């Protein structure tokens, strides 16, 4: 870690301006940023602390949806009564993320912006080659230890997995990221690595997440987040699925279905092919299992992560069937 200066922003505008300067970074809960600074990955010259800004930590739920301020803590959102009842998948995704200690520190905006856990990305002194860290330097992961790497959305430049849970639920329900004036659908907020894996988000210097908005949807009310991993708690997903269903009046025919995958892709992964295959159909186990295979269409493995291609459809199927049972 190198020396940096610390600046406590007095207002949102001041924070934006300060963060637009080269070498400046916003500091929220610090659970990603300080960690990466210690690894030598993040080398901020100035940390712009936004945790004291007023009015950014509210959680407002109305008939139209939920608006969650960027500084709301993961733990608070997970535990919020209206979030739990109207957006169970969001609450469950947060509950299963990280540890209680981290959830008490970490913010919603910081959570979206968390970086990959690719071990090569996190160890610059041993692995100088990493296109995400140093564009054009190569990718150390390809040909190396890949058990945790993505099978969907990869490129020749980078196969790093997006590790977060919350954004998977958000992408399923068409949430919107508020960047002050500008608003952008969360699915567009996260970028595929392509040839520029260093550019992860559609956010420009001088911009700052202010809030997340989740529209009210019937499918979000009947939703769940299923996270599969070797360790019962405090581990990133081997594969996960956010699923929400809305049935027709008959209680069997699927009117709306939302499916997104975590732990397997380079960004929170909406599985529209699964949704389209089942919408308008009666929920029936074999059909669900068959359709769930579409979740990993086009998946490419790198050896040790092959199991994710087997696992992800099973997770999707289980989650859909579980939501069907609650009918």
């Amino acid at each position, binding site marked *: 870690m190198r020396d940096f200066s610390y600046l406590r922003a007095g207002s949102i505008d001041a924070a934006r301006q300060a963060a637009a300067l080269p070498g400046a970074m916003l500091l929220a809960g610090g659970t990603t940023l300080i960690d990466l600074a210690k690894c030598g990955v993040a080398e901020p010259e100035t940390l712009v602390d936004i945790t004291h800004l007023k009015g950014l930590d509210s959680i407002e739920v109305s008939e139209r949806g939920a608006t969650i301020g960027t500084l709301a803590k993961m733990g608070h959102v997970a535990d919020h009564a209206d979030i739990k009842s109207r957006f169970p998948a969001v609450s469950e995704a947060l509950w299963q993320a990280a540890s209680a200690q981290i959830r008490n520190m970490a913010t919603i905006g910081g959570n979206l912006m968390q970086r990959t856990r690719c071990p090569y990305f996190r160890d610059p002194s*041993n692995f100088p080659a990493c296109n995400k860290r140093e564009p054009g330097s190569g990718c150390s992961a390809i040909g190396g230890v890949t058990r945790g790497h993505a099978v969907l959305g990869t490129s020749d430049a980078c196969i790093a997995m997006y590790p977060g849970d919350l954004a998977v639920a958000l992408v399923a329900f068409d949430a919107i990221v508020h960047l002050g004036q500008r608003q952008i659908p969360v699915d567009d907020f996260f970028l595929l690595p392509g040839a520029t894996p260093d550019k992860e988000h559609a956010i420009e210097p001088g911009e700052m997440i202010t809030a997340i908005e989740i529209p009210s949807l019937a499918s979000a009310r009947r939703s769940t987040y299923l996270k599969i991993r070797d360790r019962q708690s405090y581990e990133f997903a081997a594969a996960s699925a956010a699923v929400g269903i809305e049935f027709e009046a008959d209680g069997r025919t699927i009117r709306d279905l939302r499916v997104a995958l975590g732990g397997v892709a380079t960004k929170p992964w909406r599985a529209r092919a699964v949704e389209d295959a089942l919408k308008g159909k009666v929920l029936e186990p074999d059909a669900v299992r068959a359709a769930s295979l579409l979740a990993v269409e086009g998946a490419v493995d790198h050896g040790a992560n092959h199991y994710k291609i087997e696992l992800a459809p099973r*997770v999707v199927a*289980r989650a859909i069937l579980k939501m069907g049972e609650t009918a």
Partner: protein
Amino acid sequence: MTVHNIRHGDASDGAEAVGGRLSRVDGPAKITGAAKYAVEQQLEGLAYAVLVESTIASGKVRAIDTKAAEAAPGVLQVLTPDTIISLRTASDWFGTPPPDKPYCPLARDITFSGQHVAAIVAETFEQAVAAAALVKLSYDEAPSIVDLSDAKAGDGIPIDAMTKEWGDAQAAFASAPVRICAAYNTPREYQAPMEPHGLIARWEGDQLTVWEPSQWLDGMARTYAEWFGVPFENVRLVSPYIGGGFGSKALALSHGAVAACAAKMLGRPVRLVMTRPQTFTGYGGRAATRQTVTIGADAQGKIQSIVHRGVNETSIDGMWVEPLGSVTSIMYATPNFSSKQNVVRVNSVVPGAMRAPGENPSAFGIESAIDELAYEVGIDPLEIRLRNYAEQDPYAKKAWSTRQLREAFAAGAERFGWSKRSPEPRSMRDGNQLIGWGVAAGTYPVRRAYGEAIVRILADGSVEVESSSIDMGQGTYTILAQTAAETVGVRADDVVVKLGDSRFPRAGVTGGSRLAGVMTGAVYKAATSALDQLVGLAISDPRSPFHALQANTLVVANGRIGSPRGDGPDVSIAELLKSVGRDHIEATGDTMPANSTPEDRYKNYTTIAMALPHTEGDYSRHSWCAHFIEVHVDEDFGTVRVSRVVSALDSGRLYNPKLAESQWKGGIIMGIGQALLEEGIVDRRHGRIVNNNLADYLVPTNADIPDIEVISVGIPDLHSSVLGGKGVGELAIVGVAPAIANAVFHATGKRVRDLPITLEKLI
């Protein structure tokens, strides 16, 4: 007047005697943060050292460019192989005289990734970290051998001392009606103590003080003394509390040498603490192992032959033997047996001791294999173990001192409900969850050495115990207080135990589960002689209120002295000492043989050469256990969850059941981690562990651990220790991984022979 009776083995009378469930006396200090760990000492003029490590696994350091680091703010020193002072090679832990050659803790010749090559010393920790990043290393890289499966690794070096053979194992196997043969692998595993390794070193003239978490003060003090060529007495090791060791904190390591060199060169105290990633390469975890176990049996499952071959990793220039035949050779009766072991050199740090080295992987092999045999023959896995029960040590051909394993099987099976098990694999389920029940046994030898202690009875009637042994959470402070309390006749509350300073009377290594047996014996002896002095004074000193009584003995209990029949005075210890004009009574006790020379003592406390073999004399001494484990395996996801554990254990007499149960449970939890999660993953191109942090190297969380029931089936074993206890700390991890693997087979019909049992092995 009251006569106080102490009821042994029961704390309900408030005496908290040996055998009582006294809570950890160091608990409040740890919980409130008052406990000061070694590197938390505040010293005037402290400087901070940070290590720079190799990023290649094999080759030579061509050049070290330190210019930028030297110029960085706050930097006091840049140590490289060229600038660091030269040390002498120290003897190994057996005390073998070392080769007469210099020792440099910073390497030019690289044999593993993460080897220490340079160090920065600066005014602040942050400055040292920043400067360390500026050191530029260039290498001449050479090909490396990654691990056991590397094509270049070869068969390795035969370790003849590990060979155990009787009968004609190959021939008996060839003619056996039932034969099974399988290979079992365990990966590199890491101790991962909460408190990382580190130290503060300070020189005053040629006197060195080292504050360092240590499982062996006197052994480490010897190493430091030999490195620097100063008398043993000049080195003081201080280690009041240890945040977990699991075998990894018994030896002085190269980072300690670097810090002590820096302190000497700078003339200031120096602190060096490893980063978490450095703890994966700065010293060794459990060696990766590979075993083949071949069993020939008759149609009833009675074993006729076991052929066992084992291999473990060691480093390029260090030797670590993980004794893989240790459980294989004693668990079951067999007329024919053969076990041999090789070690293979790979480019890694030299592996080290980790909870039950040898027994742990050994049990994974034999306890999985016997399970496979049970299915092959078609009998219950518990029944096959009883059919092959070893009535004596099959290898040493000696009687067991005590072996309550049959009792452990019976008690565990009863409590677990084993008789309700449905024998077929995949025959028990709950929705998507396949349920499996597995059993496995474990054992650990009783290692014995000698210790010494001082017991003082102070003017206020309290008792003080001093010993250079240590408490790394296992409860030494507590059981020594109980031992002194019971022996002298005071309440445990009135005993202060001081540990972790090499100036105190000495103790051998805290490893191999030997310390409790050794130190309770030493404290018992010292306390007995302090009590004898006290009673002697009370009877014979003319100023004593008991002088006129003409008694030949007195009773001391709860801090008061009275006559056995209760017909004389009743005074507190403090009152008695005052009346006879003494401000304290002091006695030293040790368990060394009577005619031991000072050289014997030095050797005993600073090496492991004097440790008594567990088969010394007429008996073979071991602790034993049986684990019964239930798992739920998700049939779609392959995730394994341990849902129930019942373990019955024979550690002989328990000095404090509460603490023993905690240690057993800790061992079982570590075993669950070993079975399901733990594995150092190596990048084969770089020969480097990539999951070198606690987010990626997974150990169990609370959510992974069900209620664990432990049952003590031990009886006092006076062949094993003065007070009848056998080993506790390492026993319980042995057998957990095979019990889980066996349960997973029962649940799924899939036999996983490579640990850990991660989900991709089951989907």
